[in-house]
């Protein structure tokens, strides 16, 4: 992975593209739940979730490829675990939204717990993005060979 520029770059690009779609879809649904575009029916928005899950798989596969390229760089950095935790919480919220919102009647007002979960979703996705960007700047170890 590390020695092939094309493989590493392809993984990095696919990771960014998939992340943009996953975070984008989650932001759109969260913004709707917290009160933007109040006439936009919520249940049909869940039809974007299949694309979301395809992209989530792409994030995991490309993320694993990037981890294989520089395992020591990520695994010795606390920010990596913060990203992993925020990403996992974000995906769990997506799963919950997909199940609870898909049959929501059009005229039903947004429940308070959905609204609170939407705020949490906005925070965890922002954390995922920030942690991802900070990963490139906060590592202390690049290669495991440093230790021997």
């Amino acid at each position, binding site marked *: 992975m590390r020695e092939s520029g094309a493989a590493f770059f392809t993984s990095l690009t696919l990771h960014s593209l998939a*992340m943009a779609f996953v975070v984008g879809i989650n*932001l759109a649904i969260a*913004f709707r739940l917290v009160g933007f575009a109040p006439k*936009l029916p919520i249940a049909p928005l869940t*039809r974007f979730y299949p694309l979301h899950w395809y992209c989530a798989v792409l994030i995991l596969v490309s993320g694993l490829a990037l981890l294989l390229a520089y395992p020591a760089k990520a695994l010795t950095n606390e920010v990596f675990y913060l990203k992993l935790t925020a990403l996992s919480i974000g995906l769990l919220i997506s799963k919950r939204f997909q199940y609870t919102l898909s049959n929501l009647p059009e005229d039903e007002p947004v429940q308070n717990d959905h609204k609170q979960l939407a705020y949490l979703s906005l925070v965890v996705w*922002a954390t995922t993005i920030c942690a991802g960007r900070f990963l490139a700047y906060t590592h202390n170890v690049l290669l495991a060979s440093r230790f021997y």
Partner: protein
Amino acid sequence: MNSPWGWPVAESIHFLGLCMLIGTVGLFDLRMLGVAKQVSLTELHKLVPIGVLGYLLNVTTGTMFLSTAPDQYLYNPAVQSKFFFMLIAGINMLFFYATTATEVKRSEDSASLATRAKTMAAISLLCWCGVIICGRLITYYRPPYYWCLWCQ
């Protein structure tokens, strides 16, 4: 910008802005192309101001990058390609609002949308994906080894 936090904070805001754009303009494009046909086009379009806010965040942070290290950006073929995709997306958007937006908002059924509207949606989506790809490429094509697409 040259403080330890400057670049990562600006880059984080830059990518968040891009996600806001993809989550609103990108989803509107996908809807025009026939994804999630049950979603109302008119109502989905009301999320687009969030995408505009995201775009403004991108322009602001992008200007910060450019003004801090202009030589690393202006002579970088990935940046030049990114600007090209942004230009095409911008022209496409102007053309869309001038010719097709009213018709799209009237028509809730994507099957009945004109091929022109769908073509514009595809161009928009491809351009924003191109912007993301070129944005990722920037770090791999730093001057002085590369300085334009046509002089390798």
